């Protein structure tokens, strides 16, 4: 771990940390308003809502779980394969070290703003500052549970499992998906109380209960001790699961992004790329679709779509959509950022020496890859948005000021997903590791990943903020101009929003193409 960490703390990394912390403070401001929105929804008018915090933490867990399904839960480089896995180091130690390394980054980035948040709450309840510190540590334990779960999910997606173990693996995946979305259903009015009881014992529920108990000074009692014990039991459980899975065939279980490192169940396939009568660009898209279908990306894409759709439906049913469409879009941005992995990982699958020595426009090539990778997700979301949107619009017909926000937020969801994916592709083009890493050493790539994560999230947020702001000011616009202008405003603002989205995507993808053209690695 010492050597893995060594390369990270350069001036660039420290600058990145400072920028990251500044970003986190801004994020906390957005997060706290979302938290308050949830608090109002679950019926508590004063003080902290344990359930609201549980839902907020659940959203983080969804993001980490998506990362796991994208294969990022346990990143392994070719250098690890060549030097670490060929050394007499037990795989369980490698597993633990990798998760600890990710935890280190999470702690460095996550702890200060979390601590600030709890100190604020602690000040409100007049509890001593050590209570806030402990509450922050409890939340960090929850984040480590999330990282371990993400690593376990990535480990479970390996090709080396037997048929019986694959059945357990599939059950595990379904369970994780259901349990991760379950807490968010608490937003829906009239939800059966049993669901609340189940959500209460999940990691996010326990972390929220223990943290809120600490800052509000209501700790103590057997129930509280049981919550703490259960939280540590979750930690132990996901850790043991990961260690158990990594005990044998560690290398076989992981998809390593090096030439020949991927394992395919069937080496012989039916060739599907028939170029006759097709344009170059349709062949490029077809090539992407074939690659996606033959690797784990199709599954990751499907799971992203399920998470996004599930969240949209639950949020619409909860009634929070109409009162706070900006919170909806912001949360969608967060979930979408984690789920844009399919688009972001395009460079890992690409073979730049072929493209760069061919007479093709890189800008056009990147756009065609975007179409191939982004279109399935967007097409999947369109019917969900229609299904969710129609009742919402009909429900707000008597409230013009809210109706405009809903009308803008519905296509806004697709727009944010589209821009986030394009942003992910740009940053992958600039910082992502391509097929060989003899230019970028493993440590430099780690640094590039940190920079990329920070810049990508910040720039993506900047790019989507006009869409969110448009929704935010819609109510004010209707109030100022009058409900008679609603149709004109709706058509005009939706048009502006779509035009902005198209221009943003075009801009980002052009930048991506230029970044690839300038790269000197292959």
């Amino acid at each position, binding site marked *: 771990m010492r050597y893995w960490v060594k390369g990270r703390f350069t001036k660039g990394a420290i600058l990145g940390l400072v920028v990251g912390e500044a970003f986190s403070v801004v994020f906390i401001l957005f997060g706290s308003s979302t938290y308050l929105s949830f608090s109002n929804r679950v019926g508590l008018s004063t003080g902290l809502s344990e359930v609201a915090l549980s839902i907020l933490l659940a959203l983080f867990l969804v993001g980490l779980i998506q990362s796991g399904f994208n294969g990022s839960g346990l990143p392994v480089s070719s250098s690890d394969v060549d030097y670490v896995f060929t050394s007499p180091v037990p795989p369980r130690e490698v597993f633990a070290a990798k998760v600890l390394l990710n935890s280190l980054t999470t702690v460095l980035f996550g702890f200060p703003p979390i601590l600030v948040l709890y100190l604020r709450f602690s000040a409100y309840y007049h509890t001593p500052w050590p209570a806030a510190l402990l509450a922050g540590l409890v939340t960090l334990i929850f984040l480590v549970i999330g990282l371990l779960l993400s690593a376990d999910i990535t480990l479970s997606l390996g090709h080396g499992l037997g048929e019986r173990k694959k059945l357990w693996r599939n059950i595990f995946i379904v369970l994780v998906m259901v349990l991760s979305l379950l807490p968010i259903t608490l937003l829906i009015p009239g939800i059966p109380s049993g669901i609340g009881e189940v959500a209460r014992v999940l990691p996010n529920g326990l972390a929220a209960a223990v943290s809120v108990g600490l800052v509000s000074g209501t700790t103590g009692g057997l129930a509280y001790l049981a919550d703490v014990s259960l939280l540590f039991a979750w930690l132990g459980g996901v850790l043991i699961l990961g260690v158990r899975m990594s005990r044998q065939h560690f290398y076989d279980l992981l998809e390593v992004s090096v030439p020949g490192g991927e394992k395919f169940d069937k080496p012989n396939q039916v060739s599907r790329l028939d170029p006759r009568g097709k344009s170059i660009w349709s062949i490029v898209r077809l090539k992407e679709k074939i690659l996606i279908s033959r690797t784990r990306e199709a599954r990751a894409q499907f799971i992203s779509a399920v998470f996004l759709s599930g969240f949209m439906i639950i949020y619409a049913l909860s009634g929070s959509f109409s009162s706070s469409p900006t919170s909806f879009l912001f949360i969608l941005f967060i979930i979408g950022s984690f789920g844009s992995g399919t688009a972001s990982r395009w460079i890992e699958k690409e073979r730049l020496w*072929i493209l760069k020595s*061919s007479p093709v426009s890189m800008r056009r090539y990147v756009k065609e890859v975007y179409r191939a990778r982004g279109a399935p997700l967007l097409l999947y979301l369109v019917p969900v948005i229609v299904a969710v949107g129609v009742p919402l619009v009909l429900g707000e017909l008597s409230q013009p000021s809210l109706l405009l926000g809903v009308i803008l937020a519905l296509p806004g969801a697709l727009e944010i997903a589209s821009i986030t994916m394009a942003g992910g592709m740009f940053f992958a083009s600039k910082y992502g590791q391509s097929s060989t890493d003899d230019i970028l050493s493993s440590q430099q790539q780690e640094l590039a990943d940190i920079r990329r994560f920070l810049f990508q999230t910040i720039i993506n947020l900047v790019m989507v903020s006009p869409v969110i702001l448009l929704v935010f000011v819609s109510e004010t616009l209707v109030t100022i101009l009058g409900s008679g202008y609603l149709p004109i405003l709706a058509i005009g603002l939706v048009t502006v929003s779509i035009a902005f989205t198209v221009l943003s995507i075009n801009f980002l993808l052009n930048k991506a193409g230029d970044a690839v053209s300038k790269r000197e690695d292959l």
Partner: protein
Amino acid sequence: MALDNVSLKIASGEVFGLLGPNGAGKSTILKIMVGILRPTTGTIRLGEHDIVTDPEKAKKLIGYLPENPSLYTGLTTLEFLQFVGKIRGVADDLLDQKISDSLKSFGLEEKRNSLVGSLSKGMKQKVALIATSLHSPSVLVLDEPLTALDPKTRVSVKDWIGNQTKRGVTTILSTHDLDVAQTHAGRIAIIDHGKIVAVGDVESLRRLANTASDARLEDVFLRLTEEKGEEPARH
């Protein structure tokens, strides 16, 4: 600075070798030639096309094989070659025939529906060579085409290079294999620390190095890279 005042003129149909120790700048020269790297000064012209200002036309003339080429492991051999042929502008009615002929000549017909990821290193190198020449380029740029290959595959690749040169394809070849350079290359440039140390055919290189007329190219190479002159000698 990776390269220092490198200037070369390679005639049409010539086989030109680049020799030099590791890190000398051979790959950098080749990458600049094919438009992957931009030169800080100077021009690179393929025929009448400048690779920097007119890249798409220039790249139509080039077939490039990098050192350790990585392929799309998720595509079958056939799909990979179809994809590369298409983006390099091979006509539909010619592509299938070219692929079939090439797979046959390299003994890879049985592997046409195998995923590239399941092929051995030698087979992948052959597939990469086929991809390099599908569009019948007039200039082949090959970076260490024989590195880390088994003896049987090396023979196949050497034969392929020989056939290309017989067809009059201009070939620029970077290699550590002095035997290949001596056998196939008409002229050789020796590069050291980013500079061209000497250029010429084997005979003239021997004279420059002040070695015997039957000296091995290895000895010539070692002598010339030990002596770092101001101006490269050209023949």
